[in-house]
């Protein structure tokens, strides 16, 4: 374990977040079990009050979740000097088994948390809590992943031991250890460029259809989800080399560094934002027929679709500008 202030901050906050989520789950189970809107019992009144608490808790938790995703990547980046062969976060995540699974779980949690907040928002707009059971069932599904994230994070940081000089040997580490591979395998650039352009175009077209005709939410949401994955793959495959102006450098983490004007944050923020809002359209779709949501959901879906299209168009435009301005041809 490395005693680094950022590691202490990350571990402590993820333990706090997990305990808050478990607290919310405890009441979630009670709500699933005893919720009855027609009843006027004191238990029901208490549960109705608790829903405010849980919504607040989870809104904060998911807000912190977003910031901590980037703090984790930044920390990994700054720790890379401590490991032989690690040049940036890519190498640091590779120092033990838990690094990459942690990153993936963190991104998935971010997306799921965003979707939960979307459902929660729709539910709170209606007068009779129509989605309350579904929302808490979703929370029960989400909670284990948040706990898993904490466990992975603790194990990841506990398993780190930096390659420093000891009294018995100097460079022995550097010579004998094979070193941490910093390169990520990249997919072929040209097919991905087509896929990226197609997914961006499809998102925009389907988004306009959703906004105008109020139909096709499910297809739009599927395309928006696919566009996220294709976007990340493209970032590794051809956008990063264009930013670095180096055809062999595919690192998805170096783009977050100061040398490249922190441009990576805009890429990740637009892609993550586009994915959450886009998938949110599809998640809300099945609830359109709920009587108390009939007026609420279609307008919410339209707003989400507009947001998603805006996010993805920004990502697409940014990519275009990056590639056109890059000296790598």
């Amino acid at each position, binding site marked *: 374990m490395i005693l680094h202030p950022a590691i202490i901050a990350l571990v402590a906050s993820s333990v706090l977040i997990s305990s*808050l989520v478990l607290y919310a789950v405890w009441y979630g189970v009670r709500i699933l079990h005893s919720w009855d809107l027609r009843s006027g019992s004191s238990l029901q009144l208490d549960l109705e009050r608790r829903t405010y608490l849980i919504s607040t808790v989870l809104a*904060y938790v998911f807000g912190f979740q977003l910031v901590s995703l980037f703090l984790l990547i930044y920390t990994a980046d700054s720790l890379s000097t*401590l490991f032989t062969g690690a040049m940036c976060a890519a190498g640091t995540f590779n120092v033990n088994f838990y690094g990459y699974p942690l990153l993936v779980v963190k991104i998935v949690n971010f997306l799921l948390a965003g979707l939960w907040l979307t459902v929660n928002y729709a539910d709170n707009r209606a007068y009779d809590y129509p989605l309350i059971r579904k929302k808490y069932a979703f929370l029960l599904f989400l909670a284990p992943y948040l706990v898993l994230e904490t466990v992975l994070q603790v194990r990841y940081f506990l398993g780190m031991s930096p390659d420093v*000089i000891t009294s018995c040997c100097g460079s022995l580490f550097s010579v004998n250890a094979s070193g941490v591979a910093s390169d990520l395998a990249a997919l072929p650039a040209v097919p991905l460029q087509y896929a990226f352009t197609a997914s961006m175009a499809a998102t925009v077209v389907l988004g306009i259809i959703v906004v105008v005709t109020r139909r096709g939410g499910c297809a739009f949401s599927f395309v928006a989800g696919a566009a996220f994955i294709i976007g990340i793959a493209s970032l590794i495959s051809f956008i990063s080399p264009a930013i670095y102006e180096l055809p062999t450098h595919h690192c998805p983490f170096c783009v977050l560094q100061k040398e490249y004007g922190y441009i990576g944050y805009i890429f990740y923020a637009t892609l993550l934002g586009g994915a959450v809002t886009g998938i949110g359209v599809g998640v809300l779709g099945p609830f359109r027929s709920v009587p108390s949501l009939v007026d609420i959901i279609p307008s919410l879906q339209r707003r989400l679709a507009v947001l998603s299209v805006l996010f993805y168009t920004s990502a697409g435009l940014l990519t275009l500008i990056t590639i056109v301005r890059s000296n790598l041809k």
Partner: protein
Amino acid sequence: MGNWFERQRNIIDFTLSSLVRRKGKNLALLLVYALLVFLLASVMFFTHALRREASFVLQGAPEIVVQRMSAGRHELIPARYLGMIKGIRGVSGVRGRLWGYYFDPFSGANYTLMVPEAFSHGSGDVIIGQGIARTRLVGPGDVLSFQRYDGTPAILTVREVLPSASELVSSDLIVLSENDFRRFFGMAPGLYTDIVLTVRNAKEVATVAGKVQKLLPDTRPILKSEILRTYDTIFDWRSGIIVVILSSAVLAFIIFAWDKASGLSAEERKEIGILKAIGWETSDVLLMKFWEGAAVSLTAFLAGVLLAYVHVFFTPVMLFEPVLKGWSTLYPSFKLVPFINPYQVATLFFLTVVPYTVATIVPSWRAATIDPDSVMRS
């Protein structure tokens, strides 16, 4: 959208005026909060600046240092090793270094004696660092006397005092000629303290070090990257220890914040009761509590960070200095370069604002769900 902004604006307006109405209670909270941020931020800024300083200094260090080991201890290295190392492919330069330590009973400090690659003065002359000039009260032209290994006196004339810009590395330094050095310590001509190598291709450094180790099994090669890494770890570790120690302060602060947030005065309860009676919903009160927390956190955070910035970069850092910097009789006095990045701010945010927020969620919710009639009846 305009409606939404208007609503937030009104609630913020109300929150701020209600915060000001309870000045005493909120000022106490702000003060403690800002103090905590100040302490943690000081530690982080100071460590970071020291790390940067160390890495700047080491930028000019040789890529590989080869030391001879005997019985697990650093030994003098024979000159014939130079030729053997020079034969390794990829090595572009080899040089034997002469340096050592001298304990000066007058000042109670250790000096570092070093022979440079080319010494511009003659035998009997020395160049000294600012620290030595300060403690021994000497300047160019003055004479310094030391005791050689065999007890005979060595009288050396100071020719130059090194500029203060390099004080971090040269405070306790005495630069002298090879001849004087060997007579001073009684070191035979064929021996050096250690050997430094330069390697043409940076990617081959580790391979060259491996070859040196194979060729000369009684030596240990030390890479520049390893020294840098070790420094980084030491500074991280030192600041981590302090953060862990300060975590008890964070805990105390959480309890304090929890207590402040849950101990609503009769007046506050009445206020919330009236608000709800005139039509505020639970979610509006929660929103008000959110803005209250945001206002307190933002003020305390900014004040704490600003104070820490001034403390670390513009005043002699009084707190934590001995622990973070390390200690020595002849410690250099140097100015740190002001530096702050979003990463440090984010870490501080997670160490202070997140615990504060977590501590106040439940009390805020309790306040927001007060029954108006029960409050007004009591």
